């Protein structure tokens, strides 16, 4: 069960090697989380992520999970929930893709869309149903500011996150009053493996800062969390910039 501050005792991370996912798991294990499920493609990285959390005192179990194989999601996630209540599901998987490369190879672009959007729709719905049946829990969905307004530089990734964001908002409304809390997290550019070597955008953040914002969002039962918080104001201004002008902005 979550405590008065929304801190979970059992956590399921979809995308078990995600840096934000693991940073969040570390923070929560330092508080009340005792059982952590890491779902991801079996790999040495997943095993070492599990070992790292075990070192902090958590009971960690890994589950083979592939966002690109929605047909397997139901059985896989069903097994996790059959073991006991899950207080929080963190939907943390996603790929950035390579915009220039993917524009020329539509199949690669589709892969981005399928991972970030289709995979999340499938696993998100399954987790939402399971949480609703247990009558409590938080579903935390990692969206991105990139989904807020299309940018020339990353619209394939951005459109997949826009779809995910809209899906998660609607899911949150659908689950309102069922005891299940859905939180959409919109980080700006996060310094991580995903963005290594790229030019840093303004208001960049770190996995640890995102984790801290998630912990605060759980405490306040927020529905939308921007990281850093100033992005909320910046993006609401950018949203209203006319297209001809927006195209010329160096963002």
């Amino acid at each position, binding site marked *: 069960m979550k405590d*008065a501050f929304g801190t979970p005792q059992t956590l399921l991370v979809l995308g078990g090697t995600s840096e934000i996912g693991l940073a969040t798991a570390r923070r929560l294990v330092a508080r009340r989380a005792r059982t952590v499920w890491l779902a991801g493609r079996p790999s040495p990285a997943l095993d070492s992520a599990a070992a790292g959390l075990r070192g902090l005192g958590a009971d960690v179990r890994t589950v083979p999970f592939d966002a690109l194989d929605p047909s397997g999601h139901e059985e896989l996630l069903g097994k996790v929930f059959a073991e006991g209540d899950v207080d929080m599901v963190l939907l943390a998987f996603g790929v950035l893709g390579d915009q220039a490369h993917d524009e020329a190879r539509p199949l690669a672009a589709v892969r981005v869309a399928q991972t970030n959007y289709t995979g999340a729709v499938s696993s998100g719905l399954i987790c939402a149903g399971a949480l609703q049946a247990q*009558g*409590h829990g938080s579903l935390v969905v990692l969206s991105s500011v990139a989904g807020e307004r299309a940018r020339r530089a990353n619209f394939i990734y951005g459109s997949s996150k826009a779809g995910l964001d809209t899906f998660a908002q609607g899911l949150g409304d659908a689950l309102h009053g069922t*005891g299940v809390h859905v939180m959409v997290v919109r980080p700006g550019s996060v310094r991580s493996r995903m963005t290594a070597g790229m030019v840093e955008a303004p208001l960049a953040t770190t996995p640890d800062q995102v984790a801290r914002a998630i912990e605060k969002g759980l405490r306040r039962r927020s529905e939308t969390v921007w990281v850093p918080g100033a992005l909320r104001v910046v993006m609401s201004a950018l949203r209203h910039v006319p297209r001809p002008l927006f195209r010329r902005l160096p963002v």
Partner: protein
Amino acid sequence: MSVECAPATPAEHTTPTAPTTPAGRDDHLPVPVTGWGRTAPSAALLVRPRTPEEAVAAVRRCGGRGTIARGLGRAYGDAAQNAGGAVLDMTSLDRIRTIDAEDGVVVCDAGVSLHRLMEVLLPLGWFVPVTPGTRYVTVGGAVCADIHGKNHHVSGSFSRHVLSLTLLTADGEVRTVTPGTELFDATTGGMGLTGVVLSAALRLHPVQTSLMAVDTERAADLDDLMARLTTGDDRYRYSVAWIDLLARGAATGRAVLSRGEHAPLDALPARARRRPLEFRPRQLPSAPGLIPGGLLGRPSVSVFNELWYRRAPRARRGRLQSIPAFFHPLDGVPHWNRVYGRDGFVQYQFVVGHGQEEALREVVRRVARRGCPSFLAVLKRFGEGDPGWLSFPLRGWTLALDVPAGLPGLGTFLDGLDEVVADAGGRVYLAKDSRLRPELLTVMYPGLDRFRALRARLDPRGVFVSDLARRLSL
């Protein structure tokens, strides 16, 4: 003489949750439920049995996620929530069955509130044996949380005055349980996890009037306060101190003591003597539903605490106060829990034994240093501990404080206080808890192993379960 009594009027503060459905209908949906602190909501089917038979049927029928009884929802945390299962709203089981006005014994359903008992019993010259800081708790809740009041140093906890109860257990049977038995001691303080209390027989306290004769004095700091409580408590039936936890430095722990007795008839002025047993609580309008969080920050609470302290007389004797003003000042504002906004609040109540005063000082120092915006923190000297296996009181000092749940870092801070309390052999109160680290529970409650063993025997399928029980593995 025995008096048969009409059922209570349902005009009390029931909890502000969605409408309940009578037992027997299954076409309703789960609704979100929280405790009085309004934190950690979870959804459950709310079932409202109107007769003991309907309660039996509801328990027999409950699904895999079990059920828990709920009264007026005054437990601060998740004690009366059951995510994904059923919650039995007991407030329709509200008949006062018999009153023995000669010997002072009342038999009533578990859903009767202490408010209702006062309305009915005071005109007959009887008062409830123990009342907490609110009248809006049910008898069933009072038994299961084994509540205490300002008279604990004289009268002990609520269950000491229970002559017998009927308990609906997991097998669907209704048992009569009497003091001195294992099941009684597991049920009193057992947070509803041994079964559903259906009715109870209570021994009452005789009074001549419905007024209190109250002595008020100020204490300059914590040590002064403890000295005054230690030397003076035996002279009073009721005793409690309000502490200003925001005062720092030399004033750390400054307090207002308020102690009193039921006023004898001859203490009343002639006018009041004509109706000495009148009980007419007054109420202000409800707190509004939408209050922004953070209203009760440090500045506003500091000002409030300062005024509260200054307003109190340095020393005043024999002032006449009504029962609501003396015992239940917050009941005057319905839904006062809303003032903390949507983040809700946490009440932290712990007890440490005599000889562990240093732990109490340490907690007060930490709270003062951190500047927790806590208004109306309450210190009380407990008498002998009570027999319930999970009963809270221990002979010593208990401090209760409210803190807004939205305060950054509060979880870690309270965990630190838990360590101080546990190291001193103390414990926190389960009826108020919404955040305790589960590992500390066995340290704080040595009776827990027995409790778990009895529950495994009595309720092997886990029919009775609550969010509290899940969170702390009770």
